[in-house]
């Protein structure tokens, strides 16, 4: 029996959000409510009526065990880029030079 969570991008800032048990949206995948495929479909339809809140709601398959999305794309989408970026990723001058 496939288990799903419902995700979208928040309209104002585009960030990835997940549908919670309270019917709100959270940036944390841990807060996502788990649905059956049937219920997820209903929830996606409901989300599409929240056009000033979120964009592009859809259901995400979870791994058979555990609470992580099954596809790599969805895991990366849920937790962010897999690399350090921006000021946190600055390479020290010595390393940059390959010394």
């Amino acid at each position, binding site marked *: 029996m496939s288990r799903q969570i419902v995700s979208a*991008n928040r*309209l*104002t*800032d*585009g*960030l*990835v959000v997940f549908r919670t048990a309270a019917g709100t949206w959270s940036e944390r995948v841990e807060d996502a409510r788990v649905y059956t495929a049937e219920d997820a479909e209903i929830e996606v339809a409901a989300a599409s009526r929240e*056009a*000033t809140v979120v*964009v*592009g709601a859809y259901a995400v398959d979870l791994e058979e065990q555990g609470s992580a999305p*099954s*596809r*790599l*794309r969805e895991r*990366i*989408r849920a937790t*962010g*880029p*897999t*690399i350090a*970026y*921006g*000021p946190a*990723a*600055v*390479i*020290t*001058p010595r*390393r*940059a*030079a*390959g*010394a």
Partner: protein
Amino acid sequence: MYRYDEFDHQVVRERVAEFSDQVSRRLSGDLSEEQFRPLRLMNGVYLQLHAYMLRVAVPYGELTSGKMRRLAHIARVYDRGYGHFTTRQNIQFNWPKLSDIPAILKELAEVEMHAIQTSGNCIRNVTTDAFAGVAADEIEDPRPWAEVLRQWSTFHPEFTYLPRKFKIAISGGAQDRAATFFHDIGIRLVRAESGDAGFQIIVGGGMGRTPRVGRVLNGFVAKSEILSYLEAILRVYNLHGRRDNKYKARIKILVDALTLEGFRAEVDAEWQRIRGSVVEVPAEEVERIGAYFADPDWQALADNPPELAAARSRSSAFNGWVSANVMAHRVPGYAAVTVSLKPVGGIPGDATADQMDALADFADRYSLGALRVSKEQNIVLPYVRQDQLHALWQALVAEGLATANKGLISDIIACPGLDYCALANARSIPLAQMISERFSDIARQHDIGEVTLNISGCINACGHHHVGNIGILGVDKRGEESYQLVLGGDATQTAAIGDIAGPGFTAEGVVDAIETVIGVYLAQRQNGEPFIDTYRRIGLTPFKEAINAAR
């Protein structure tokens, strides 16, 4: 560089006002997402895997220190402190809020920048050689023509809804540094026997799922007739290009379908109708635009000043950097410097706001305030005095921007891949980082010599893997990442699409395979020939056999 006239300013201001209004109507719910999506795309705003992405145009890659500082400011205030320079000489911000985008566009407009022609099925931002106007091998400076094309193509009413996006590159060098054979239209400045300069027109090149080397449609078009000729090509494409299938909509497919001769006949027929008409660019206009690209006041200097020679013999690190990253300049005593955005273990093309500010300062101090974005995702300082190279290098070292790897194996071109891109199959960035770590020894890189390495996270080929001497394509293998290795591609005038050397690699596996490929090259290399020459001489088989034996 080109400065906006009142008309340009007004056009950009109006566009900002219009889009600001559209954003607020979207936020209030007056516009649905379906209505808003094409509008945001027309203004460079995409929705990516994690957030919105704003692509800002850097027409033909030219920046001033003032513009670079503004980009740094935007990165710091509205984004997460960095930006990403792309293979089309643009910059992308990965985390802007939709509600901030009107403010960002306003800030950009103040420094004559915008996001027009960075998305949608229009003629995209024209690209050129990052060394335009300074390269020693140049026939003529292509930038005035790039600007003519920008003005012609921006909001061209007939070509705003083409069957698909349309990319034009123009190059002025004997060496093609703008990949003209891989654009919808490639334009090369050439000299006729009469001594006149004109344009060679290449059509139907491209990458993606159907890679094609462009073909010469016309060997010489006079400068005064360039716009009617391009207009004729675009009209034939606009009329016959397939709008029913996105995968068959690019001009390369039309050229295949009609054959080159058939396509040429259609273009010539249309050209005869409009040749010499009002569509041509008036000579005064070319002259007016050309004046914006006039030479700076060069000092009378000699090549190889004694201080440069002394510094090179004192420091092997400086010497290595000069040999890789400093290019001959057409003016004696000057040099064109590439600042690598590919440090060992770094993200190709990324620069932090602080680095952008530092680059702007270095441009002011050492390069008459000028910078360029290269299609290799590096920054070029085009007007550096040779006797100041050492001082510039020391300043770059302090900022971690002195990686001496231009054109070497760690000067990797990579698309954002699955870490950012909603269309991706596999990650590109971690793979680029692994490769640059594996080959981190800079002395070894210099020994391997010139080789291009390109990574794309899917068949859309934004990382130009088809034309890397070594190319890597990310594919989806039952929900997991897998990589295909391609060898022998070439983006220059000796254009070639790479051959598949092997599918089904893991990320680690592909790094090992590259190591094997380099081993074969070093064993087979004759007389210091670069990788691509060895590949052409011995072919794919020895590489493939070695890869399979090591697997």
